[in-house]
């Protein structure tokens, strides 16, 4: 009682709020600083690759250049400047979206990636959505009944998903569902040879819906089904196991026991007490899977000739065309790091206990 009087006229609750807010801000700034450091390090890595591979000069000059021409070219491209100055120029270029240009098509890498990113995004959205749809409920049921059917099915599926290489699984799907059963179309990209819907979001299925073209929508679903299922198989095991352990942690906690002993109906306990408490780690793993797959879907994209950024990088690699490769690497690493950062912040906002 005396302590409260000591704090004067201000409400102690209020002070507490300020403290929490300032702590949150400090955390936010610290995470932002770390994000910045990691991004700098990532860009340094790709920068050093460009210098080791000797891309800038090699790409610019022909075979029959004289020494003077090479020197002149070097001066022009700023390759005689000190390394740190080259690096700052590289960073400034990156900030303006300059990722270099392809040696094969002479188009800016930024535009080419821009064309292909929606394809990857669509594939990954479908794959992660599919994984979430089956792995989260299965994981939750498995947590309620350990060693029950859901637990067994989930662990068999995730053991399978961990052991099987995604590209091989894709080939098997092609053999079964295209060659034998003929359910799905041949694995030639997003729509085979058909005309894509007019551009709105770049995601063909959404665009087709917006255009009101239902047959085209179904067609896009047919094309995306096999790669999305393949990716979902190999990316869902972490989602299943995290869900299972998150839910079973909450199930073992005292407040659930207390709620049960009050006689609160189990439906209410599940949705009011368990779901919100188990959600943060699950949201975390789903978001991380999404971030990872943007660059991690390379093999599946290659198998299904999916015109995404992964196929783009691999094709460029075949021609020793390094700017596109590094552009894709930089982009996917950046997306992953930024999602990681956002998820961390979201985690603190969602879970009041972490603010302490």
């Amino acid at each position, binding site marked *: 009682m005396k302590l409260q009087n000591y704090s004067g006229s201000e409400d102690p609750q209020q002070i507490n709020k300020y403290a929490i807010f300032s702590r949150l801000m400090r955390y936010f700034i610290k995470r932002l600083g770390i994000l910045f450091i990691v991004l700098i390090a990532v860009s340094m890595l790709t920068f050093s690759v460009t210098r080791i591979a000797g891309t800038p000069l090699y790409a610019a000059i022909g075979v029959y250049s004289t020494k003077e021409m090479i020197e002149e070219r070097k001066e022009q491209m700023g390759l005689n400047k000190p390394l740190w100055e080259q690096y700052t120029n590289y960073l400034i270029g990156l900030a303006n979206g300059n990722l270099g240009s392809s040696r094969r098509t002479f188009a800016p890498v930024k535009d080419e990636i821009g064309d292909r990113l929606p394809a990857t995004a669509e594939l990954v959205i479908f794959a992660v959505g599919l994984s979430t749809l089956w792995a989260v409920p299965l994981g939750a049921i498995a947590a309620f009944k350990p060693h029950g059917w859901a637990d067994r099915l989930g662990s068999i599926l995730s053991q399978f998903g961990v052991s*099987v290489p995604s*590209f091989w699984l894709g080939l098997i799907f092609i053999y079964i569902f295209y060659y034998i059963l003929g359910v799905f179309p041949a694995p030639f990209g997003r729509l085979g040879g058909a005309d894509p819907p007019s551009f709105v979001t770049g995601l063909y299925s959404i665009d087709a819906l917006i255009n009101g073209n239902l047959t085209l929508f179904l067609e896009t679903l047919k094309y995306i089904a096999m790669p999305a299922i393949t990716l979902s198989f190999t990316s869902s095991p972490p989602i299943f196991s995290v869900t299972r352990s998150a839910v079973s942690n909450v199930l073992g906690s005292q407040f659930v026991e207390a709620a049960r002993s009050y006689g609160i109906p189990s439906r209410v306990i599940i949705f009011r007490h368990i779901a919100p408490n188990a959600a943060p780690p699950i949201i975390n793993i789903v978001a991380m899977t999404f971030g990872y797959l943007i660059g991690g879907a*390379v093999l599946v994209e290659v198998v299904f000739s999916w015109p995404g950024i992964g196929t783009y990088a691999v094709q460029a690699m075949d021609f020793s065309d390094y700017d596109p490769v590094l552009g894709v*690497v930089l982009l996917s690493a950046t997306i992953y790091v930024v999602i990681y950062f956002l998820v961390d912040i979201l985690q603190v906002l969602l879970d009041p206990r972490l603010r302490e």
Partner: protein
Amino acid sequence: MIKIIISILLKNHKNLQKMINQLRRPPVFVFLIMLFIVVFGPLLAPYDPIEPKPMNTLAAPSWDHWFGTDNYGFDILSRVLYAAQIDFSLALVGVLIGGGIGSLLGASAAYRGGITDFFLLRFVEVVQSFPVLLFALALFAAIGGGSRNMVLAIAIVNIPLYLRIIRSSLLPLRTAEFVDAARCAGLNGFIIVIKHFIPNAKGQIFSLFVLSCAYAIQIIAGLSFIGLGVEPPHPEWGSMINAGAGYIMLGVWWPSIFPGLAIVISVYAINGLSRQQMTDQIRSSV
């Protein structure tokens, strides 16, 4: 299980019964068969793996060629058997290098704390922010592909895994009494890390080692699948799958399916071994 094998080798026959009990477990059994194939695969192979038979391409599995032949007329069974050795040895070397460096760095991070810890953790974040395959692509863009650089890529990818886990498992030791005692005795940091920190993480290092071998096999296969790892005609599971990939739409399934099965079985066996070991640890600690 390793302990038991060592004691058998030391002629400690008390453990023979334990060994036989181990063999009854499916993951251990499958793993030992895999090991046998890795060691003796080339002797079991019926044909030369890189001897093309132009008259007999894409032959379906038969008594002469159990797994069929591929588009160059190579015998697939022989190639799968030979490839086991290549895949396993590449994975093992990469993981040993990466795991060694990673455990050392992780233990140092746990011991030193402060700025060392901070920068090592940032290093982990940087490397892990790249998808593995794209990281390898960037590396290969700089220094070229081939199996030697693939080992390097696997080593680099493994460093952060070990660093993070060994660090977090050894973190409580920083304030342990025996570490203080060692410091008082005048040992320098490096020796404390090697002699007093790392032995405490033996269990973690081993189970991580098993898991990362499985992971490495998948990476090797993936890289060779996109034509960047082991160069054909050297037998490798990933590049064999790639060679058969174009024919699968025509219904020719054997060139791709069998090498893939080999990957699945070996990764499953290795993972099963690590699961078995974990349950053993839990059981023995209870």
